[in-house]
Each structure stands twice: as structure tokens, then as C-alpha cells.
């Protein structure tokens, strides 16, 4: 097998890697937003409960949670497909981390602007939707990018639940060719390439939607 053949096989796995990354990122975004907003609006009890949830999700290794979901849940009658298991482990954990990013960004929203919105006659909910969330999201961009790359870097563990992503393809190749050095070096570069592509894409979007002087405060 030539290096080109190897690369072609790995690229097939790259599609799955991207799928896992995007599915988990979408889960994380939704979970992170729901938690952060619920903590912003909710009372002391809800906030404490969500704090505990976030604490637990941040304290459990991703691979262990993946095993709880994928190998554990069927034991109590819940069969979870591999991709969903990734979303319920990696996605949830990243969501917990993202909720903290969002909370910090909420705190950075200028209170004068919120008062002005109130003085205009906006309700608390409208203020949240029109002022707080749009600003919070912009403040969160660096944290979100960081979390996206973290998801990419934890995506290889999907092979343990049988998703044929890059690492799984690599293992199969190594088993037949016995060329671990070249193959793992190649997928290391492949991951770095995807990482770099994601970063560049986000930077491009960021530049496109950047607001003059917004990040300066």
C-alpha cells in the first residue's frame, strides 16, 4: 500500500470525524445555551441544580461517560446508537464547559445597556433575547472555538463504540500493513489539518461578522 492509498482510506474516515465533531458541537451548543440561560433566568434552586449538573459533567472523564451511555444504558433497557452515545457523552460534557463560557460572557454584558432596554419598555425576556444573548454570543466566540477544537480532539474515542472515523480506519490499516509509525504520523497531521481548517474557517466567519471595536472592552 502506498502512502497515497493510506491517505485515501484515512480521508474516508475524516468524513465520520467531521460528522461526530459537528454533531457533538451542535449538542454542546444547545446544552450550553439552555443551561446558561436557565441559570440566568431561573431561581436559586434551579441554578444550584444546574451548577451541580455542570460540576458532575466537568468532573467525569469523557471516555467513562461514553461507556456509561453506550455499554451501561442497554443494561437498563436503553439502546443508544454510537453517534447518539457520542452526543450524550462528549456533547454533554462540552455543553457543560460551554455553559460556563456563556455565563462568563453574560457577566460581561454592560448593565447600562440593560437598564436602557428596561427604560425603553422591553420585558426581561425581550432584553435577554435582543440585547443579552446577541452580545453574550459575540463575547463567547473565543471560548466556543476552543471548545470546538476540544471536541475534535476527543472525537477519536468514537472508535471505541465502532464508528469508522479516522482513528478506526488507521487501526485497521496498521493491522494489515504493520506500519504504525507512518500511519499514525499521517493521521496526526490529518487531525492537525482539520484543526487548522476549522480555526481558519471560524476566523473567516469571525472577521466577516466582527463588529468594529467590540472586542476591545
Amino acid at each position, binding site marked *: 500500500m502506498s502512502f497515497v492509498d493510506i491517505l485515501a482510506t484515512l480521508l474516508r474516515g475524516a468524513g465520520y470525524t467531521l460528522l461526530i465533531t459537528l454533531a457533538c458541537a451542535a449538542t454542546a451548543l444547545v446544552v450550553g445555551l439552555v443551561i446558561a440561560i436557565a441559570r440566568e433566568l431561573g431561581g436559586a434552586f434551579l441554578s444550584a441544580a444546574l451548577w451541580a449538573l455542570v460540576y458532575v459533567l466537568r468532573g467525569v472523564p469523557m471516555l467513562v461517560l461514553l461507556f456509561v451511555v453506550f455499554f451501561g444504558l442497554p443494561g437498563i433497557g436503553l439502546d443508544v446508537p454510537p453517534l447518539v452515545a457520542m452526543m450524550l457523552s462528549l456533547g454533554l460534557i462540552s455543553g457543560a464547559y460551554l455553559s460556563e463560557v456563556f455565563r462568563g460572557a453574560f457577566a460581561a454584558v454592560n448593565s447600562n445597556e440593560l437598564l436602557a432596554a428596561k427604560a425603553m419598555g422591553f420585558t426581561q425576556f425581550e432584553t435577554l433575547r435582543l440585547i443579552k444573548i446577541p452580545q453574550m454570543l459575540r463575547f463567547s466566540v473565543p471560548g466556543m472555538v476552543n471548545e470546538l477544537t476540544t471536541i475534535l480532539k476527543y472525537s477519536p474515542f468514537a472508535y471505541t463504540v465502532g464508528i469508522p472515523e479516522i482513528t478506526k480506519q488507521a487501526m485497521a490499516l496498521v493491522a494489515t500493513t504493520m506500519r504504525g509509525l507512518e500511519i499514525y504520523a499521517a493521521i496526526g497531521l490529518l*487531525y492537525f489539518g482539520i484543526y487548522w481548517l476549522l480555526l481558519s474557517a471560524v476566523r473567516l466567519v469571525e472577521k466577516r461578522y466582527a463588529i468594529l471595536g467590540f472586542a476591545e472592552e
Partner: protein
Amino acid sequence: MSLEAFPFFADLGAYAPEILKGLRNTILLSVTITLTGLLGGIAVFGLALSPSRIIRFITQSYISLFIGTPLIVFLFLLYYGLPQLGLTLSPFVIAVFGFTLNVSAYNARYLTIAYKGLDQAELESARAQGFSRFQVFRLITAPQSLRMSVPALTNQAIQNLKDSSIVFLIQYIEFFAQMQEVASRTFLFFKTYLFTAFVYLLLVSIIVLAARQLERKVAIPGMG
């Protein structure tokens, strides 16, 4: 109350020696890589401030490469690749080596970020007083950057403990590996993995509490 009241814990009890041995290996690995990663991080941080443009470029490339690739891929590279070169190392040595290179890159980045927040005039004045570049690093830059990075560095320690759960994939038999063994023997997958998660959570909580103490202790008066 006897263990028999809780059949699951009675089952676990039967595997107690293996589980404890696994736990010991997990703690051994986590503590080792946290220390080597810290020392490595400081060294890389020092190189990142080098006056030589080439050294700075190499250091930054190293940091970016390791932050931009999954750790497990690097561990696989070492585990499956090195024997090709006639070099067969134990899983523990491979884990320590792989983690150290990875964690050092992250720690160096945290320290570099802290460094950018330091008062540059202070560093200049130290140079003006006649301290050598290395002395400035050892006496001022490194201690201050380290103190400012305590939250990030303790977070990394937590990350190290959690990430140590992946080394069973290169056949290092630590806590998670033992628990998988227990699960497959007892068929109590859900309970066993939930218990596993709980133990990690407990260990993480201990680090969190210790980190709080440390943060209070090293806080520099008047410095955010």
C-alpha cells in the same frame, strides 16, 4: 451493615485487590504526568521567550502541533510505531512520555498567556538592574507567570486525571481498565461504569478543594 445488603458492592468487593491496584496506577500516572508536565511546561515557556527567532519558531510550532492533535493519536504513534524502530517500551513509559509532551505544550501556553499580562516595565527594570536574561526568567518572569496561571495549571491537573482514563487503550492497566474487567465479569455494566464515574468525580473533587487552598495561598496581594 454488611456488604450483602448491597449486592453490587458485594460484587465489587470480590475484585477489591484489582480495583485498588488500578486506582493506584491511575494516581501514580496522574501525579507523574502532572509533575513532568509542569516542569516541561516551564522549560518550554522559557524557550518560547528565547531571543533566538528560530528557537521561538520551533517552540511555537511544537506547542501548536500538540495542542492541535489528539493525545490518543500520539500515544498510538508511540505504542504501535516505536517497535517498528526496534524500540519497545512499557505502556507506563509511553504514557508518561506522551502525556508529558502533550501537557507541557498546554502548560506552556497558559504560562505564555499569563506572561503577556505581566508588567513589562518590571521586567525591563530588572534587566536594567543588571540581572541576566536567565536570572530575570528564574527570579521574576517564571514565578509571576506561575502564580498567575495557578487556576489554569490546576485545571490541567484535573484534566490529567480524567485523561489518564484513556491509557487502557495502550494496555496500561489502570482504574478504568480494571473496572471494565469487573463489568465484563459481572455483566453489571451500568452500575459499574456509573460507580467508575463517581470515583473519578470524587478524585476530581479532592483536587478542586486542594486547588482552592493553593490559589488562596499563592495569591499575590493586589494582583488579579
